């Protein structure tokens, strides 16, 4: 029994923590928050690529570090803790994940080395506005290699060089995935304002854009789900990191803020609130760790582990971010304090791969299948 990260992974974590404390302090995040024109912190992104983080799970033959999903999760937790404003999740969890899962050898050779070097940024375009995107709702279509349609919001759609797009093959065809060069003809991008302005999003309109199939035709929906499952795990680590950061902030504040002649952290209303956040965060962490193990070992119950991690981590982060503000009292809801940056991020992340409701529903569906097929 060794349900913990390895010593090497702890070293990686320490390195990540140190680097991000230095390079992505709250002031740097705030700079992106308050500057509408900046999609992300370019210098930070390049340094993360230099450190090999961007290519963590890319095999060495394609220029990556050839590490496993656990290592990616170690980094993700630190990114979540610091709110580092970069297109990491889009390019690494989603675009890289999609290419590793479904890319042809040629596509891998074409994209992965650049992805590993941070020289190209990828993103994934599924949603088409307000409401649930599902297998029969997608309108974007590809005819004769040419894409028409509109995707929004696309996380990092403005920063990315290419997108992996879920679209119909033909007017009534099955869903498939496509690679689209976002600097190519027939692609128009507009920034979309989000609840968390530190993570840039775009509306992307395709009007005759060249689209290259990724994976087998008709596999679009199942591939999307499989990519989301794998992405959900490092995303859960970002959420756990964020929840922990909120808990740390609230605890620190409660120890040092005095009212009625005593630290507010000596009132049970605050103590027990923070204990509840700790409990939620520990439950989320435990589920996320299991997800990391499933990711690294390609375990058969990876989808279940991913859904459980996603649900637990989303709830913990939203709770922690919300009650961190409450613990800070009046200062908590000022623009000047950092609490709201976490509150925004918590909400954004819990919507990013589909809302909480859908992941809970999916978790139960997976448990039904597991149980009826006799696994456990």
């Amino acid at each position: 029994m060794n349900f913990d990260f390895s010593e090497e992974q702890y070293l990686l974590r320490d390195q990540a923590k140190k680097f991000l404390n230095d390079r992505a302090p709250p002031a740097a995040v705030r700079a992106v928050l308050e500057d509408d024109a900046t999609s992300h912190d370019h210098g930070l992104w390049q340094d993360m690529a230099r450190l090999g983080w961007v290519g963590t799970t890319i095999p060495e033959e394609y220029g990556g570090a050839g590490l496993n999903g656990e290592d990616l999760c170690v980094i993700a937790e630190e990114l979540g803790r610091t709110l580092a404003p970069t297109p990491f999740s889009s390019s690494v969890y989603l675009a890289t994940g999609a290419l590793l899962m479904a890319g042809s050898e040629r596509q891998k050779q074409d994209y992965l080395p650049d992805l590993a070097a941070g020289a190209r940024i990828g993103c994934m375009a599924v949603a088409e506005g307000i409401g649930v995107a599902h297998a029969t709702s997608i309108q974007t279509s590809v005819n004769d290699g040419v894409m028409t349609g509109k995707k929004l919001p696309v996380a990092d759609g403005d920063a990315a060089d290419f997108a992996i797009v879920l679209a119909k093959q033909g007017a009534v065809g099955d869903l498939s995935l496509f690679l689209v060069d976002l600097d190519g003809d027939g692609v128009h991008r507009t920034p979309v304002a989000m609840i968390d302005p530190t993570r840039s999003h775009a509306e992307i309109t395709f009007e005759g854009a060249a689209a290259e199939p990724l994976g087998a035709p008709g596999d679009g929906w199942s591939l999307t789900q499989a990519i989301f499952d794998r992405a959900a795990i490092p995303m859960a680590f970002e959420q756990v990191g964020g929840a922990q950061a909120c808990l740390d902030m609230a605890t620190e504040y409660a120890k040092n803020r005095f009212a009625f002649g005593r630290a507010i952290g000596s009132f049970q209303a605050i103590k027990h609130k923070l204990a509840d956040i700790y409990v939620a965060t520990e439950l989320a962490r435990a589920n996320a760790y299991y997800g990391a193990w499933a990711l690294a070992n390609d375990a058969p119950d990876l989808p279940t582990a991913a859904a459980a991690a996603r649900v637990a981590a989303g709830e913990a982060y939203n709770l922690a971010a919300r009650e961190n503000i409450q613990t800070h009292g009046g200062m908590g809801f000022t623009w000047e304090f950092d609490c709201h940056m976490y509150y925004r991020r918590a909400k954004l992340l819990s919507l990013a791969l589909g809302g909480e409701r859908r992941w809970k529903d999916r978790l139960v569906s997976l448990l039904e299948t597991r149980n009826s097929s006799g696994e456990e």
Partner: protein
Amino acid sequence: MDFNDSPQEAAFRAEARAWLEDNAERKGPGKVYRYKRGEPELIPAARAWEERKFEGGFSGIALPREYGGRGETRLQQIIFAEEEADYLIPPAVFSISHGMAVPTLLTYATEEQKQRYVPATLRGDEIWCQMFSEPAGGSDLAGLRTRSVRDGDADDADWIINGHKIWTSGAHYADMAILVTRSDPDAPKHKGLTYFFLDMKSPGIEVRPIRQISGYSNFNEVFMTDLRIPDAQRLGDVGQGWQVAITTLMNERVSSGVRPAPDFEDIFDLVRMTELENGPAIADGAIREKLADWYIKAQGVKLIRARLMTALSRGERPGPENSVSKLVSAFRRQEIAHFGMDLLDMGGGMVDPDLAPMRAMYQQALLDAPGGRIAAGSDEILRNIISERVLGLPPDIRVDKELPFDQLPSGR
């Protein structure tokens, strides 16, 4: 039980409605009031509306006639507010003036001061703000540090004020202010306070708006540097400031009944217009269960208000109704905002009013809601109030009652 007005109430309501019909435009689909919160044009419009009400006899409905009020009941005041809510009028900027400053002046000011200030306030000439909270205080109002010192030994010497207030609504447009200060730091916390009113144009006042998460600036910081206040503008005795402040706070207004959005009806609308991956959202059991819970809370708050109105119509004092309603409503609003966005799934994070349903009501509410759970009594303070004042449970153990203020632990 009877949900109808009494004959007298009905007559007043009819009179109010007739006057409003003649003097304001009724709300309707697509009709919104023309000045948004935060716009400078709002203030003159609010003053003009207050003046018009004053002329019509509807400003200060429950305040004494001799100072320009109508001399009627608090219930009638609420009835007017209920009716007024159906019209396109400037959002209330006078609630502190009428609800806090005027009642305090009526209790503690001289006759001359009452004549000077109360009618002017009711007429809309003067807007008041309330300078109580301080950065070090938070929920601990009596922990304030703003110093007041006599300029000399005379019994009626001026006072010199230095300090820093926060969460002052309307300080940037107010004409007048009520202020609590610490005149004796050697006395125990609640015994060294002194209360004043002042002109906001006095030298030595600097107002800085506080930007909130929501992007709005409803509150200010106020810095006072060698601000001079005549002793005649002291309300209550030296050292009696805490008792005067209690008077002010006891008069916090009964809510006008305008509901904060989104509430049950809004989320019910959103659910009914939403299709999910497997059918209409309204068919989903998890969503139905949430709707049921929110309905009984929204309905409960509405009915608790009906009980309050009943008590007022009998001339009874309000009970803990507002604490209960605020506690329930502020948290429910945050839950509903959170859930509404989740319902919109991956697109739920978009905040553009042209993209997000109901002009981004849910996204805006997510950012407004945290302040709603803190301002005007945090969840935790409200639970303390309910447990102590209603249930009679013991107060928290206090370490700050007896010691000289100077010697209290402050974490600094």
